[in-house]
């Protein structure tokens, strides 16, 4: 595998210029058995790696992305790429996920649209995009595919894995499904199951897509995209990622390039313009069907049901990984009490778990933004693991 190439004049702490790679797993006859009962394969997976795998292959950390993320977690594709990878603040030499010491891997999830097999990929049986013929997938299916990728890379045991939001749900699923394969996990701004409020927001987003006349039952590839629907879904999503305080600070009631109301139905407030911009730019980089499939996978996830017959405490009995659970004070989409519920279930089983609720006004988005406490907490947790500082 090609490593990231450092020293190309990027900012200090950057992993440098990176490239997304792909590999194929679950080729028939070993197609993936999905939770919905159908089989899928071959499956292509996009991934990036940063740092170097040591000869003992015990310094690997898997990063798990959220709903709209991808394999590009750190570095830049080109020196002039405007934005680095989505978790560049956390991954790099000297950062929390220190690439001088750890081999960091990030894959695009199954069902995604950034290089991994998803509804926009070509169905080998028909030669046309899957669209709605793509099987309904689960968080468990995503994790099974990630395990196949690690097996291919020769990594049998992860030093750690980490993700925020849906990434945290995958991290939890990992330590439940493969307890022997993970030494530790950092679960950030996440939950063992979505609240009805979160499912409700997801459904409004999906309904916006499905109601778009261009959606055509998911068969829109090659024609006009259901851009309005996907854009509205993203706008709703963005409202839930922010907090009342952060919106107040960011936009206030400021008007856009005008001093007075225009008495027309056009975009006047800065917050309106921001949301429309977010919606429009999302349409350019994300597939509407992927949005439907991935939000559905989030809605279905319930670790207690899947692993403990409805009891989270019972489910957590199988966990072997040392875990760090983090939440943010202003996150109302994945509120702290959901994290605490997971921590409680782990503690009731006598598991090695730590919990910190980090002060932030940025809402759910806080895990993606610069936050010294987040960096220090994750960095300290990993330092201790790799230094073998824990008392056995």
């Amino acid at each position, binding site marked *: 595998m090609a490593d990231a190439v450092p020293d190309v004049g990027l900012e200090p702490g950057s992993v440098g210029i990176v490239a997304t790679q792909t590999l194929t797993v679950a080729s028939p006859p070993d197609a993936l058995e999905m939770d919905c009962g159908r089989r899928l394969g071959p499956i292509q997976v996009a991934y990036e790696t940063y740092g170097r795998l040591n000869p003992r292959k015990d310094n690997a950390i898997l990063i798990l992305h959220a709903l709209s993320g991808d394999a590009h977690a750190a570095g830049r594709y080109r020196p002039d790429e405007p934005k680095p990878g989505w978790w560049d603040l956390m991954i790099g030499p000297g950062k929390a996920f220190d690439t001088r010491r750890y081999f960091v891997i990030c894959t695009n999830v199954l069902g995604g649209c950034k290089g991994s097999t998803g509804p926009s990929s070509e169905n080998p049986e028909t030669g046309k995009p899957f669209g709605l013929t793509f099987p309904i997938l689960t968080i468990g299916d995503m994790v099974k595919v990630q395990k196949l990728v690690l097996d291919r890379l020769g990594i049998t045991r992860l030093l750690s894995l980490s993700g925020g939001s849906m990434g945290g749900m995958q991290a939890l699923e990992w330590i439940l499904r493969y307890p022997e394969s993970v030494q530790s996990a950092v679960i950030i701004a996440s939950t063992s199951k979505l609240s009805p409020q979160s499912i409700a927001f997801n459904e409004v987003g999906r309904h916006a897509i499905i109601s778009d006349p261009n959606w055509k039952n998911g068969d829109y590839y090659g024609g006009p995209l259901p851009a309005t629907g996907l854009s509205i879904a993203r706008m709703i999503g963005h409202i839930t990622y922010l907090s009342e305080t952060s919106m107040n600070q960011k936009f206030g009631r400021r008007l856009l390039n005008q001093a007075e109301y225009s008495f027309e139905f056009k975009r006047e407030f800065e917050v309106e313009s921001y949301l429309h911009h977010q919606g429009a730019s999302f349409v350019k980089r994300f597939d509407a069907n992927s949005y439907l499939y991935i939000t559905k996978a989030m809605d279905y996830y319930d670790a207690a049901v899947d692993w403990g017959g409805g009891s989270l405490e019972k489910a957590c009995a199988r966990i072997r990984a040392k875990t760090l659970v983090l939440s943010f004070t202003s996150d109302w989409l994945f509120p702290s009490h959901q994290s605490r519920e997971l*921590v409680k279930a782990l503690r009731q089983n*006598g598991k090695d*778990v730590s919990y*910190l609720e980090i002060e932030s006004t940025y809402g759910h988005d806080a895990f993606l933004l610069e936050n010294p406490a987040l960096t220090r*907490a994750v960095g*300290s947790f990993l330092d201790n693991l790799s230094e073998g500082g824990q*008392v056995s």
Partner: protein
Amino acid sequence: MRRRLRENILVSDYDRIVTLVEPGSSVLDLGCGNGDLLMRLQRERRVRGQGVEIDQNAVIECIRKGLSVFQGNIDQGLADYADASYDYVILNQTLQVIRRPAFVIEEMLRVGRKGIVSFPNFGNWLVRAKLLVGGRMPRTKKLPFHWYDTPNIHLLTIGDFLVFCRRHGIEIQRQVNLVQTPVFRLLLFFLGANLIADEGLFVIRRRPGT
């Protein structure tokens, strides 16, 4: 009622707490700070330890040490913890800073088979003298804060704690009076712990049948 063990010692409360805890037991440290005590308990007594701490930076220090720590406010109780789920629950230099000390002590004796409580003794002669002679809120080595910025909102004396335990059905299994110099250990013998000890350290449990 069993006879209460009493001792008057010079060592720090950390040192004494470490030796009070049975090797291999389970410990919940309420208000564990940066985890130094838990670390010693793990190293020297091989305990299975967990901490609760409210301060973010202290929690991160615990994480750096590899400890299992939960950020929470112990004044809100220990509802997440089952009855008798720890051998010891420790309240080290924390009793005087919490809002609901009686409630927290009840909770610690529900969750732990035994409680270990230590606190600065407000009945100490120097504290009394500073208030009596100076007429100002006492500041000492153990109580270094000004009245307006102190975290200590429920200061108490060793005498107060003894009365509290008697009235709340709590059995004191061991009372350790900590003093700083040998002279005071001698004085303590004549004048009593409440006047001489710098700190009180108690091993308590719920009195059987209450």
